[in-house]
């Protein structure tokens, strides 16, 4: 329901609000719809409590009116205009395009972001649902802006349907890869898996073995969570990847493709040099995103406007959305922004 940016704002503010409460769980439960509150796990620290509450609201989707997410946010922040604005955005369900039977085929995600084309990426991700996929590691490449990171929106959407899968997304900020060492990466992954970051193994041994211990710590945390996890490491390309962080990613790829962990958890790497992975050839699904053809965008806009009863506007809107773009369109982030605007504007 929430876009990535809105989610960050919401999560951060909720953590700030909940942490100092005498009883964080009681506070959160009191502000959630009853049927959601009843499903809140006990004993979670504030950060995980907030994440759990948000996840439950996302799963509930548009089952209630207003949606549980709106109820929760407005109860917690009754006077904050930015949260009212977020609620206004998510209050109505996405346009009534013919829903696909399979969330992997969705062109309209539950957060009203469009996700067009990318058949190959969808196929690779769908294959990860198998117990023992032949290609358990997926690497997505492409030019900047071509939608590698955008793929996480599809993964989030899938996880809203397959609620036994919890995504974990770590993105390297541009030009800041040098600050992301193995400990930083491991800590953030474990946090998103619901683990205790204070239990990180100290570096008592050589760098290679420590990377191994960190990878094991991550996998152990994932196993104990009771969920399946899709771990997305985004942007660890040659320019950003630190030399001492690479062994951790290598070890993690091996740990996640062996033993019991390989039945539950998956690794998706965007913008990563897969030639550094010592995984048997044929066991990595590699996809280079070529950009999106304007024809596909045109078809989507036409469907969208038809669903809103404004099919006569299609030619103008297609032109408006795709102007200044080459064909195929490479800047999918901007395209996504324009399509999202259109969806909001036509209601």
């Amino acid at each position, binding site marked *: 329901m929430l876009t990535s940016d809105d989610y960050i704002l919401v999560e951060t503010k909720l953590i700030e609000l909940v942490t100092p409460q005498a009883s964080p769980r009681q506070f959160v439960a009191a502000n959630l719809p009853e049927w959601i509150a009843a499903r809140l796990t006990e004993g979670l620290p504030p950060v995980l409590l907030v994440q759990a509450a948000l996840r439950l609201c996302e799963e509930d989707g548009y089952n209630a009116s207003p949606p549980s997410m709106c109820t929760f946010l407005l109860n917690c922040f009754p006077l904050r205009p930015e949260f009212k604005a977020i609620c206004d955005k998510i209050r109505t369900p996405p346009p009534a395009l013919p829903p696909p039977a399979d969330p992997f085929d969705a062109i309209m995600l539950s957060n009203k972001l469009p996700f067009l084309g990318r058949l190959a990426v969808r196929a690779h991700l769908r294959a990860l649902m198998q117990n023992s996929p032949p290609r358990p590691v997926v690497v997505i490449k492409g030019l900047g802006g071509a939608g590698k990171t955008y793929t996480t929106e599809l993964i989030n959407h899938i996880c809203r349907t397959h609620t036994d899968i919890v995504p974990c997304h770590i993105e390297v900020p541009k030009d800041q890869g040098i600050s992301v060492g193995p400990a930083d990466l491991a800590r953030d992954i474990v946090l998103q898996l619901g683990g205790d970051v204070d239990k990180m193994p100290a570096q008592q041994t050589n760098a290679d073995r420590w990377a191994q211990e960190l990878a094991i710590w991550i996998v152990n945390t994932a196993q104990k969570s009771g969920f399946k996890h899709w771990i997305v490491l985004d942007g660890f390309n040659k320019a950003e990847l630190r030399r001492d962080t690479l062994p951790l990613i290598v070890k993690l790829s091996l740990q996640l493709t062996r033993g019991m962990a390989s039945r539950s958890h998956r690794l998706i790497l965007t913008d990563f040099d897969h030639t550094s992975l010592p995984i048997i050839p044929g066991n990595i699904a590699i996809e280079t995103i070529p950009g999106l053809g304007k024809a596909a965008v045109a078809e989507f806009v036409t469907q969208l406007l038809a669903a809103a009863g404004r099919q006569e506007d299609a030619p103008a809107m297609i032109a408006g959305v795709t102007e200044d773009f080459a064909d195929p369109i490479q800047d999918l982030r901007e395209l996504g922004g324009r399509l999202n605007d259109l969806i909001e504007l*036509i209601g």
Partner: protein
Amino acid sequence: MAAPLSTGDLLAELRRRTAARESLSLDESSYFYLLAASVLHVFNPAQLKPWLPLAKPVDPLKALLDSTVPAVGWRHLALRTLKVEERRSALRFLWNLGGRQMMKSVLTINSTVVRTQVQTVLERWINGDHFDLASMNYDELIGLGQVYDWGIGDFGGLPERDKFEEALRRRSAVSVFEHLVDAEFTGRDRELQVLRDYVGVVSPSIWQRLRSFYGLESKPPLVLWGPGGVGKTALVGKFLLEHVDAPESGWFPFAYLPFDSESLDIQQPFTILIAACDQLTAQIEGGSGPNNTASAAVSSFKRLVEVYRDERAQLQERANRGGRLRGAQRAATEQSLYIAFANLLNRIGKAASSQQSASNVPVLLVFDTFEEVYYRLREDLLGFWRMLETIQANFPALRVIIAGRGRPNPFTVNRQAPIECPLDDLSSSDAVHLLTILDVPQPDAVAIYRQIGGSPLMLRLAARVAQSEKTSGGIQDLETKKYWLFNVAPQVIRGKLYQRVLDHIHDPDIKTLAHPGMILRRVTKEIIRDVLAPVCGLGHISDERADSLFEGLQREHALVSLEQDDALRYREEVRHPTLLLMMEDRPALVRELQEAIITFYEMRPPSLSERAEEIYHRLMLKQDERWLQGRWLPGIDRYLNSAIDEVGAEQQIWLAQRMSIELPSETYVRADLASWERLIGRRALETLRVGDALAALAILGERKERTPESPLFAMEARAHLALGHYEEAARLLDSALDDYPAMGNRGRLAEILWFRSQAAWQMGEASTSGFLDQLIDVCETLTSSLSVVQALAQKLEVLGEKNAGDLRERLAAKLMTLPLAEIDKEQSLVRFALVQLGENYPRTVTSLISPLSSEVMRRLKSTKLDPVELGKLVGLLPDSNRALLSNPSDAADVFAAASTQPTPGSVRVIIELLASERATLAGADLAGLEPYREPWEFASLSEAMS
């Protein structure tokens, strides 16, 4: 409800929002926050104070949301960091406003500063500190690197960027083996000189004159070997440290590759090359001139690795272009990669030469902990030796040091035997010197040396004991001689020393458990609670107590390391000697614990690591084979590598039938036929995997007799077929079929029939069809439909267009029964089958094409189809499909248009495009036979017998 926007208004609003996104600018309040944040590496927006007081308060998180990102590694504290371009511009503003002083004053506004390494470096710069690159450790250099990226270098006060990059390169190289560096390294002058001579290092005075290494003609590997603890790794570390930064005697690029690292797989030599490439890259990247050339060579090598991976993946597929020559093609693909690596080393050597204005710089590969792979079948190491041979033949200045326990099995590289350098104990003077460095008083050191000899590991253990006990006259109560004459085995003495070290563990319960725990190799909280505590006299303990004992044991880093599944594993160098001691001193306890742990594991759901432990303990108890029956799981062999030396000869034979272990030749001679087949079969499979069919036949020919259902028939046939010996293959298989038991393994029978049909087909015999008919009948009785799909598809290929009868109907029906997992696993076979099925089965094609599409399109993207042929296919597309076509000259696009909404008309195009792969099943094994195979076949299966 607001009225809907008109078309014009809608468009205008869209454009307005697009423009707003493109020109995001901050208001004044937000900018004040930005400036405050610019001197903070990471910060909590909720606690951030603005640079100047605000007229109207704003939420800092909202204000800076678009200018910041979550700080990786700090999410648990909800910290964020500025985007680099925002920070650069803010810092420049502050610098222009008032230089360092201004930044210092901004820094004081926020007193809660998170002290990261980057923050520390930034503040040092703000304070005007001088940066001495040579004295900065790796973390400090990394911090400095981030500060450079923020544009601070433009303001002066930092070392030149080039010098920083070089310092970071050096430190990266050191960090790879830093753990090996032993501050108390003593002696080994002779061995160090051996290493210097091997690599071609000259004395500093000669280096100053010649600036060249010497003797860079091809040399075989140098093998350093000796018992555990004798100091092989420390010696390597000392040598590398001497030369990683040695302007006075020259440095050389190197890669340190330990085989106890999970990332290296000796059966997959490419894993070694990519690890080496990554390390070497760090040492030469950056800079201009030859460094640039070396960087270009690295990029080129990486591209080749990508091609190699693709080619190998394709050759692994059941239906591919390679046909019966796929094994040879695989070997050729490997060779290309090795030659590419040699070229890379050449460039790297040149870059290193240029950087130090020298010539003839070698490149060194150090393979450590080789004992991890020594025990394996020599066939498993074939690929590795071949790799070294090829690389060295193309880059003679390659130097290879192999370090491991135990003398290696004989091997050659380019027909040269290795140079051996066995390591003995330290001399008396060096041993005593080491002890004194470790704070043992001189007289005690002499006495201790006389007790325990010169093994560095034992000397260190003794020094640890000496820290807690009085050691005048030596270590008290340490028996080193039996009956005053015979020396107690060094292992035993070591075990006793470890025991003494363990005696100093603080918590009595942990002390009680730590020692016997070593019998178990692997310890978890449940094992502590359910096995160790009861057997060791702690009785029933609660879950909480088990947790705290586990955590206490985990803190003993010298003893244990954390493994997967939250288990602790005892370090072998500690465990082994202590175990020997316990087996001698307390055999009843050892037995009791082993039996208890077997019972514990028996009741657990299967996991690889736990099943491996169960099997280990059964082998240690020398249990009869019937107790081991059915307990093996594929993949547990890697957990049992370290057990091989511990178990008896019979148990080693049992293991060798399931995993790769080199046994003495007399073992093979004495083995019964069935055991011999398992032992030899593995070796032959591995040889086939590396493409040496002749060698496989030689191995298989060591005995002529076979069990009636022998797996070796298929292997031998496969080798003959790969060599084009069709008649030999046919004779062999006819003989196998004649004696095949009526109630025998159906999968093996199918495999024999498959290869017999292949032999007949290659010889153009009419009997091909008959054999395929028999095969189809047998395959109908097998578990998976993949076998019969393959058999039917092959028959259709053999028959061509004539006399297909109902074969296509049967094939279509079988294809429709395949579960998605099998389609995904055998995509090449399904594609091949669809081609044989043809265009008249649109329902079958339509239902199967979706899971195949992404792979087909990927292949078509790299395939150059004849434009005229492609044009004809486009012409065949119905209008509805052609409307979806964006690029008619792109085969992948044509396929996408044909398959996105398949129509009967577009199915023909789909089939034609699939057929362009020109795949064949020649040289392939039969699919779907996994349930009929033995565990040892799976290790090399996917490549030897695809």
